[in-house]
């Protein structure tokens, strides 16, 4: 069951097309990575989902219902360009933002305070935002995004501005929110957090969707039968079942080769041939990283590019 269904959405500004016929389904209770280079159209899609702008064509279904203003209270949005009212107090600010998302004054105060305590900034409730450090302000923004218990949480670069400790704290909160039933759209350029967090991934490039699926599927799709082989002495040369791509010294008298078996081959044939050539110390499949996939796709190169 998908929480959000984007159906052939297009949007163009006067001089360029920001989104061209983009469709995707975001399964409920997953972390959905929305990837793409700068200017690909991610922000446009996110703004359309937030009903900040309207799509020229296409439709969006939220829980099976066409997206409408009632859904504002079910969505939490942490934009990449984010800030707070500097002259307002932390508490006033959270209550105001909570109320705008449909909470009552009482509920907003209660959940706001609980969240502040949870993230270790309970003492800052009565302080002005301008006195906060950047990291603390980021926490306030995160709280404002999730305090009304939205079904859909949209996070655009949520970790920017956090030190590693706090980034981990927020990461754990995101996972907890998912486990409690929330669906999260996660837009970032930091591929290591995509590896860690995302269940599903979609990628937009030049206003078109070029990739969509679960992370495992995508990785499967990008497996190309290449293996790292660590061996002692001797030389590996391309054989009948595989091709040698590169070799390097890795110290302690060991060398490492990257080999790829040909279309008809399989790992066992590859191993048999290698055993005949050298003494093998390790044999491991090269699983493409999200980073590799991202770069190769953006460069329009179906071959994997090693980073």
């Amino acid at each position, binding site marked *: 069951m998908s929480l959000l269904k984007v159906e052939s959405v297009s949007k163009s500004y006067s001089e360029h097309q920001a989104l061209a016929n983009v469709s995707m389904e975001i399964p409920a209770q997953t972390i959905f990575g929305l990837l793409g280079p700068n200017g690909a159209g991610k922000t446009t899609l996110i703004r359309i989902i*937030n009903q900040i702008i309207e799509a020229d064509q296409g439709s969006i279904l939220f829980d099976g219902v066409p997206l409408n203003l009632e859904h504002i209270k079910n969505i939490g*949005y942490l*934009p990449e360009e984010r800030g707070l009212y500097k002259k307002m107090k932390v508490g006033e600010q959270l209550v105001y933002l909570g109320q705008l998302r449909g909470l009552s004054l009482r509920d907003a105060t209660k959940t706001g305070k609980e969240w502040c305590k949870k993230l270790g900034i309970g003492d800052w409730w009565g302080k002005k935002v301008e006195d906060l450090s950047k990291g603390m302000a980021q926490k306030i923004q995160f709280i404002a995004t999730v305090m009304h218990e939205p079904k859909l949480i949209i996070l655009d670069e949520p970790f920017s501005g956090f030190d590693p400790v706090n980034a981990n704290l927020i990461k754990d909160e995101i996972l907890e929110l998912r486990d409690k039933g929330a669906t999260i759209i996660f837009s970032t350029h930091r591929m290591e957090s995509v590896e860690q967090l995302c269940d599903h991934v979609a990628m937009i490039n030049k206003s078109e969707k070029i990739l969509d699926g679960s992370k495992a599927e995508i990785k499967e799709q990008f497996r190309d039968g290449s293996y790292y082989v660590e061996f002692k002495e001797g030389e590996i040369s391309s054989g009948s079942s595989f091709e040698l791509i590169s070799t390097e010294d890795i110290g302690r008298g060991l060398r490492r080769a990257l080999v790829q078996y040909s279309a008809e081959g399989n790992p066992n044939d590859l191993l048999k041939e290698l055993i005949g050539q050298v003494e093998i110390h390790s044999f491991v499949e090269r699983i493409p990283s999200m980073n590799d996939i991202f770069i190769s796709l953006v460069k329009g190169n179906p071959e994997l590019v090693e980073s």
Partner: protein
Amino acid sequence: MNKILLVIQREFMTRVKKKSFLLATILVPLIFPAIIGLMVYLKSESEKNKEQELIYLLNDSALVTFEDSDRYKYENVEGPLDSAKSTFSKSEAFALIYIPELDIEDPKGVAFYAKSSPGVTLVRGFEKDIESQIRDRKLTLAGLSDDQLDQLKTSVSISSFNLSDTGDEKKSDAKSTFWISYVMGFLIYIFLFAYGSQVMQGVIEEKSSKIVEVIVSTVKPFQMMVGKVVGVASVGIIQFVIWMVLMGVIWAVIGSLLGLDPSQAQAAGMTPEQQQIQSNEILEIIQDVNWTQIISLFLFYFLGGYLLYGALFAAVGSAVDTPADAQQFMMPIMLPIIISLMGLFMFVFEDPDGTVSFWLSIIPFTSPIVMMGRIGFGVPAWEIVLSMVLLVGGFIFTLWLAGRIYRIGILMHGTKVNYKVLAKWLMQKN
């Protein structure tokens, strides 16, 4: 709707809680009467302390004489004129008046010498004095006795009345209507600028602090804009009402203090009866001014004018990133406001019912200031109604126009904006 209220509430509370608001609200009603009082006091002091000035007189004519007054003491000097001039230039005297032998039918050649150029009213005063002396002399020559001359002198003071359609007459006082008009028109002018630029500042602040995107994902940009404009307006109205109440209290307190102290009026040379009559007249005029009408119209024109301009200020704020960038778009907004104020001085005070005054008080962009300026002089009901209806239409139009620019501008960062870009935003679909 509920969300607009939230936005209004926030805009209102954050401004009202500021110390600067508290200070301005309390200090302005204290400072203004204090400044006016100080100026009146200084003026009366300088009048009181003015010393009698010495004037040299070289009078070769038997037709005119000068008598010492509170202001001037006359001293005859010897002729001829050249030596009188040199005596004068070496002396401390204030002026030298030279009167040659005058032909009663054609008095010519009177000269006034002073070390600095004399004021027009000063010279005019001497001219009148000499003219009346010569006229008296002519009348005596024609055979009138001194008694008859005295009887010829009459003093007239004109009381002016406003006659309404129903035939009621009200005593009017040109001075007080002028002041009411002046103060009301000017107050609207100040309010438009002060609160209009507050709206703009607020929008720029939201843009630069990057809170906008979060807000527009919960409320429509138009609601956000209207909420801000109305929120700031309610601050203005509260401030105005507090000012009026405070000033009323201060006025009452000062009035009762002065009323208990007749010695000042006596010092000014008035008998208690005169004083009584004068203060009664002032009271009557203050009571006759239709304060309910003026204040309710003031609130209407302030709100209407402010909504009209506030929306435009908001649009400018949304289009730029910093207050400095806003300058280029301020001119077309400020121009009609400044034209209104100039129109107030150049046309309304001269001729409150003239064609230019009429049109300026009907056109929505100038009507808030100009109509308030005309109100004191009496304006036909249909003109007020027409002007009010057009003003409502006017601010609905500017709110719509500003909303179209605002919804796009608010999300734009670092874009170079000019009028062409604004026009494009205006036409752009959502």
